[in-house]
């Protein structure tokens, strides 16, 4: 039984943060980028954190994913204390338990699409053959099987982001964390990314997305609004009423 399944059984959240804080500068120049955040994310849940730029949402994601250290507070991922880990354990956690998707894709320019995707699997100690097989399968899943041998420079922005999503999934992470994943994409490419996230959600993947794109926020199970480093509103978007699409298009009064 994998850890995700065990978490579902025991009913504890997959990702938990308590009293999370991140300070920059000191004295009069002290900025509290994240200021006392408590968060529980259940296995299989899609949570979106929205807010204006500078509200601390990217910093929060970096803390949750172990990319940066908190000034105070506790983080658990699948029951493990993340904030107390040493550098090596943290690096391993980032490689194996968390998949990252960034606004600027962060692909290696000199590697082909399939090489980019398989890289984390190789770093995690998979055999080259297994890593390549998995990478090829994931590229197919994101609709880019025919672009496997292309360099990122030969791909459109939307295609690069789909490669990055495949890469985020290659190590079979417990949680995928995305930071403005549609920030650089046009409307059609955004829809492709949303379809992918929707498919991941349906497959039970846990997703934490920080974004100011309302289109992504609207697809989440739970939407958290962040201001000045703190959560100010939480909304469950599942269920509820919905207006008629016709009325929104001006067809009825």
């Amino acid at each position: 039984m994998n850890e995700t399944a065990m978490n579902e059984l025991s009913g504890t959240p997959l990702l938990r943060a308590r009293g999370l804080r991140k300070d920059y500068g000191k004295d009069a120049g002290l900025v509290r980028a994240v200021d006392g955040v408590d968060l529980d994310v259940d296995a299989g849940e899609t949570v979106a954190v929205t807010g204006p730029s500078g509200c601390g949402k990217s910093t929060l994601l970096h803390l949750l994913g172990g990319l940066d250290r908190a000034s105070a507070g506790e983080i658990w991922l699948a029951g493990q204390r993340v904030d107390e880990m040493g550098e090596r354990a943290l690096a391993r956690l980032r490689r194996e338990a968390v998949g990252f998707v960034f606004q600027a894709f962060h692909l290696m320019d000199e590697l082909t699409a399939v090489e980019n995707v398989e890289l984390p699997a190789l770093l995690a100690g998979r055999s080259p053959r297994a890593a390549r097989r998995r990478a090829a399968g994931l590229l197919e899943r994101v609709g880019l099987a025919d672009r496997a041998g292309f360099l990122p420079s030969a791909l459109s922005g939307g295609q690069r982001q789909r490669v990055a999503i495949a890469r985020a999934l290659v190590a079979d992470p417990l949680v995928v964390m995305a930071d403005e994943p549609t920030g650089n994409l046009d409307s059609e490419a955004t829809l492709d990314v949303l379809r992918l996230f929707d498919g991941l959600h349906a497959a039970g993947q846990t997703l934490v997305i920080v974004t100011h794109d309302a289109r992504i926020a609207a697809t989440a199970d739970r939407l958290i609004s962040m201001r000045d480093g703190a959560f100010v509103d939480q909304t469950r978007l599942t269920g509820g009423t919905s207006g008629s699409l016709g009325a929104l298009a001006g067809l009825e009064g």
Partner: protein
Amino acid sequence: MQQEVVLAMLAKEPSHGYELRARLQQALGPAGDAMNAGQIYVTLSRLEKAGLVRCEQAAGLPDRPDRKVYALTADGQHRVTDWINDTSWPRPGLAEFHLKLIAAAAAGLADPIAITDAQRRELLRRLRDAQRAAMAEPHRSDAALLLEGIVLRLQADLRWLEACERHWTGWKDRT
């Protein structure tokens, strides 16, 4: 003029017609230029007939031609509460939603931020539905284009709600 807007402006205190008009003009700015002077009196007399406001002759004020003071009845108050809680969209239009926040704040009927939050949740649900429908459409279908228009318009509305929230944040401390 939307009847509920006029009712909600009366929720703060009983007022003369010209006072209501001045407050509306201030709230609407150039967007309210099209509002003609008689409209508000027509609306007020309709509301009176419907039993939603009552009219009293004010004493004094000889320099004012308009001596009637309008006040909400209990039915009128109910109508205002329903209107404030209504999250339909895209009607009310922008001006109506704008005036809703102003009237709610002025009369202390509701927190404009809470009204904005409720409206945002409703728009996000609609955005989710429109987006689901768009995702289910075949690539580049005619219908997908219309859905994209709905999605873009909802996004613009949501951005305006963010602006409303910024504007009304801390309004209690400012007044």
